[in-house]
């Protein structure tokens, strides 16, 4: 069977400026941060990013890589407001398609099912309709004749997700409490890249309900221990709250120079390690 293993930079090399990119996880939880960092090292820009936003959005926004963002929020969870997302929005640095959390999920589902849209009872009555003048409604063809929002499919060129375990063919397993929407991201994308804390040769028979990502939806597999850092990837590691605080309070050029200017993911982890030593 096909061995799909690659490095974070191999993944970035397959992405192109102008692409529509979905990023899995939720807020500051199980984000494919090593792949985002590889993206930052590359020249890829002008992206349409689709995300339940966390520091993935903050980093890409701060680096000026986003042309358009599709999101219901951006947050660091323990720090409610994502500072780089805020700053970028306040200088109108990118176009925003602001949709509700459920609308977003229906957009992923529509894309995964190859449907142009799915009807949803959300958005109607709110300013989501005002700020997205392209959103349409649909009238039920049945007796109720209800008017609902027709949430368009969030189809993407590529999806990036991070899981706890994966095999070389692209089957992925999550070990935390929540799958988030990572399988849907992979199904909604033409190509999908899965990073994992640890590559494994197979899964125990008891793992069935945690086998989230299926290989037929996956293009590449990347082993990146701490690949979700500084977001949470329980039970392998929790959120690095001290580092997240540093990220949120350090001026962007300074943070980028110290942690993101190295040649690869290993240099990022070394920089984090050196910072941690300083804190002792």
């Amino acid at each position, binding site marked *: 069977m096909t061995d799909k293993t690659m490095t974070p930079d191999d993944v970035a090399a397959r992405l192109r400026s102008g692409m529509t990119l979905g990023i899995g996880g939720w807020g500051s939880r199980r984000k494919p941060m090593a792949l985002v960092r590889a993206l930052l090292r590359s020249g890829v820009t002008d992206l349409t990013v689709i995300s339940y936003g966390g520091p993935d959005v903050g980093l890409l926004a701060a680096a000026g890589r986003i042309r358009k963002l599709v999101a219901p929020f951006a947050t660091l969870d323990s720090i409610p407001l994502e500072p780089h997302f805020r700053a970028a929005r306040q200088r109108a640095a990118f176009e925003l398609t602001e949709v509700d959390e*459920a609308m977003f999920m229906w957009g992923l589902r529509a894309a995964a099912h190859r449907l142009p849209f799915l009807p949803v009872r959300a958005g109607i009555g709110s300013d989501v309709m005002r700020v997205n003048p392209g959103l349409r409604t649909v009238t039920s063809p049945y007796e109720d004749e209800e008017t*609902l929002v027709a949430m368009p499919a969030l189809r993407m060129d590529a999806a990036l997700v991070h899981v706890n375990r994966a095999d070389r063919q692209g089957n992925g397993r999550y070990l935390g409490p929540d799958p988030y929407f990572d399988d849907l991201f992979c199904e909604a994308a033409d190509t999908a890249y899965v990073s994992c804390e640890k590559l494994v040769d197979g899964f125990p028979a008891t793992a069935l309900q945690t086998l989230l990502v299926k290989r037929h939806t996956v293009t590449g597999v990347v082993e990146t221990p701490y690949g979700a850092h500084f977001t949470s990837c329980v039970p392998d590691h929790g959120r690095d709250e001290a580092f997240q605080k540093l990220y949120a309070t350090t001026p962007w050029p300074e943070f980028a120079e110290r942690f993101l200017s190295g040649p690869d993911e290993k240099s990022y982890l070394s920089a984090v390690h050196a910072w941690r030593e300083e804190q002792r």
Partner: protein
Amino acid sequence: MTETLPATRAEYCVIACADAWRGNGEVLASPMGAIPSLGARLARRTFSPDLLLTDGEAVLVGPDGQTEGWLPYRQHLALVTGGKRHVMMGASQLDRFGNQNISCIGDWRRPDRQLLGVRGAPVNSVNHPVSYWVPRHSPRVFVAKVDMICGVGYDSAAAAGPSATRYHRIPRVVTDLAVLDFETPDRAMRLASVHPGVTVGQVRDATGFPLVLPDEVPHTREPTAVELRLIREVIDPEGRRDREVPAA
């Protein structure tokens, strides 16, 4: 004997939040903020024993934190649309008909202050009861017109038609000063009760639009001795409530 100490402002707020879930039956109580969380747990332990609670992540928990179910985000969103939920959300802005904003302040295209984003407010507000919690009642929050409608108010739901009004309900708004509701003919916000120690004038001055005022405004009810003991000794011995609403 802690029971002999009179209730604090924060404790009246906990009681007023808890009462939002009274009679709700077997639905998920989703509180945002410290005091609504304490209120939901108090309701669960006393007059609304069938409520479902979460640990804030993907786990449904009993009163002592024991696991009783699984509710990851995608199931949570399904539960929302199924209607078996009553959330108490925060509000950066709230207007006379209950339109709520947590997205941004100023012009949406280039906001003065970007906040959280709409999050789940649009889906919540047209699918199940949505109450609000405002820890600092002020004209900055209670505005004539919100900058971005996230949670749908009564006038906006009516304008959007039957699919928006069908399951739309805003039972109450609890603040550090008062309880407000929409029990008026045109669904304009009404002052339902003031917490002991607060005057009607204080609430009026802290509200950026005219409130409907009944002839007599009652006080928010007193906690029972059992409720006070539960709040102080079982649910919040660390005093999280006082950090959210300091003593008046």
